């Protein structure tokens, strides 16, 4: 998709609440948008570094908890009779701390996990999310455990002439999510098109060769993880202030799976892949709701995943790009990964 088409898409999405102010559709698009941001961040790892990271819900959840706790404040014992207190902070502080906390954990996991590859890496990332979920369930003093953190304030923005306003209307929240989404997309695009992005793709394509020409594997993979985690943390923060309740289930594997499906459906290693896949899988469940049981939705997800891997392993965007050979995607400086063909 050329830059012009991209901005036209953003403009159309931005005008939607004005043209068609249907609150239900806006709500659906808002929650889809939050997961699309998560998918965009996951794509940096999954698509560009080629590391199958299956603990992405960990960063999403960390962001949600960090943001919620910063804006609600907390007062906990930290041993030796000492207490750690935080007064409730403005929501933007929560948003920033979500990015920071997720980024720091991304750095930790990156340092730890990139010494290993393949199946071990996948399993350690899953375990990471699982440990955090148990922490959230059991550290009741901080997280309220299964009772969840409730009463999380809605987003607020400083607006010229009006001071700080709460973003309570559906349209306002929608615009905020759209804005953060565009930012996340641009961040990933800039990295992918930079010397760092080239190093990441080199590592994905042939790590041994990449290292032999001096590309520091751990260094670049950790950078990618930190950025990816930070963006996922931002998505988690949006989630927390949008649904205004956070429970340990944000760490569930199923959230990671949702983001993974979005990325591979659209096309991993393409900038627009997570957006396209995210729109499909973000809107589909809500269209199916009412007509089917929730289990049916997950069964459909699972079946879709199997069918995609079998019949469209590269995803929709590369398939469409191959269909339109005349219009080579200009926003794609690097080719999409071509995995071993299946069948």
């Amino acid at each position, binding site marked *: 998709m050329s830059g012009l088409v991209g901005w036209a898409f953003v403009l159309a999405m931005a005008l939607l609440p004005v043209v068609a102010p249907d609150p239900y559709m806006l709500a659906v698009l808002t929650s889809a948008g939050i997961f699309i941001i998560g998918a965009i961040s996951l794509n940096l790892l999954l698509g560009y570094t080629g590391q199958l990271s299956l603990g992405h819900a960990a960063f999403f959840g960390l962001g949600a908890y960090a943001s919620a706790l910063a804006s609600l404040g907390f007062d906990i014992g930290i041993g030796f009779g000492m207490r750690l207190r935080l007064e409730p902070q403005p929501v933007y502080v929560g948003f920033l701390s979500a990015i920071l906390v997720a980024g720091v954990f991304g750095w930790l996991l990156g340092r730890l996990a990139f010494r290993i590859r393949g199946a071990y890496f996948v399993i350690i990332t899953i375990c990471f999310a699982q440990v955090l979920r148990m922490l959230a369930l059991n550290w009741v003093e901080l997280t309220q455990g299964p009772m969840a953190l409730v009463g999380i304030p809605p987003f607020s923005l400083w607006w010229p002439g009006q001071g700080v306003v709460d973003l309570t209307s559906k349209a306002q929240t929608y615009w905020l999510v759209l804005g953060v989404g565009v930012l996340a997309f641009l961040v990933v695009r800039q990295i992918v098109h930079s010397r760092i992005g080239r190093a990441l793709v080199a590592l994905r394509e042939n790590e041994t*060769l990449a290292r032999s020409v001096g590309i520091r594997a751990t260094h670049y993979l950790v950078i990618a993880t930190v950025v990816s985690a930070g963006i996922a943390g931002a998505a988690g923060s949006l989630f927390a202030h949008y649904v205004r309740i956070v429970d340990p289930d944000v760490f569930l594997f199923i959230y990671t799976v949702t983001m993974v499906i979005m990325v591979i459906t659209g096309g991993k290693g393409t900038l627009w892949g997570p957006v396209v896949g995210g729109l499909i899988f973000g809107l589909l469940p809500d269209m199916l709701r009412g007509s089917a049981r929730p289990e049916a939705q997950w069964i459909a997800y699972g079946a879709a995943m199997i069918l995609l891997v079998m019949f469209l392993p590269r995803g929709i965007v590369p398939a469409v790009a191959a269909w339109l050979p005349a219009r080579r995607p200009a926003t794609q400086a690097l080719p999409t990964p071509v995995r071993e063909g299946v069948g």
Partner: protein
Amino acid sequence: MTAPLLRVEHVMVQIGGLVAVSDLGFEVGQGEVVSLIGPNGAGKTTAFNAITGYIRPRRGTIHFEGRDIIGLSPERIAALGLVRSFQRTSIFGACTVLENALMALHLRGRAGLLEAFIPLPGRRREEARLRDEAMAMLDFVGLSARAAARADSLAYGEQRRLGIALAAAAAPRLLLLDEPAAGLNPSETADCMALIRQLRDRGTTILLVEHDMAMVMRISDRIVVLNQGRIIADGPPAAIRENPEVIRAYLGGAPEGVGHAAA
């Protein structure tokens, strides 16, 4: 001769409990073309892996420009100016030829996370310079016409040349080439030899592992012969040709393939 560029002393490498290289010692002087030869399983590729940081030797020292490089990662060693090519995995298959060259020029760039976001003029200049260098490198190996092609769509001989170009791209002081002529036909081998000579003329020191004896004899300043994990001869091509121990090693004095000294 001044201090050698590379000095390998008493290097011993074990792989899975087997001794692959038992006592390796040789030097490569500035500006030389040195070939490391020996029967299959003699430990040549293992020696390369040890020198470039992919395997850690159990014993011995390896000095590059007087600096001990044992224990450094491959990428650190590359940054010091010691780069290798590979026998098999030698290109970034799904990327274009130009992108391959740009990736190989990684060490010639500086841009980090900050430059990715802030459009400083320096960043554009660096990109333009890297592109020029990449094209020049492709020109040098005769692949500039294929710059936009996917690397894995190149013919075999072209892929081998690209592999050498990638290793040579960042202008290393010492270039290790692992069987650059393997699988090439006679005319491609001649091209490959010309390429190595040109690299030497540009001031690159070259250490070569190669099976094609005609090529080795014609191109090398010096030949180091490895058999069963240890050095059995070291000298100019004419002397190696006459060396009785070398002849014995190649003509079946030692059973081929049983290179592990542990046997």
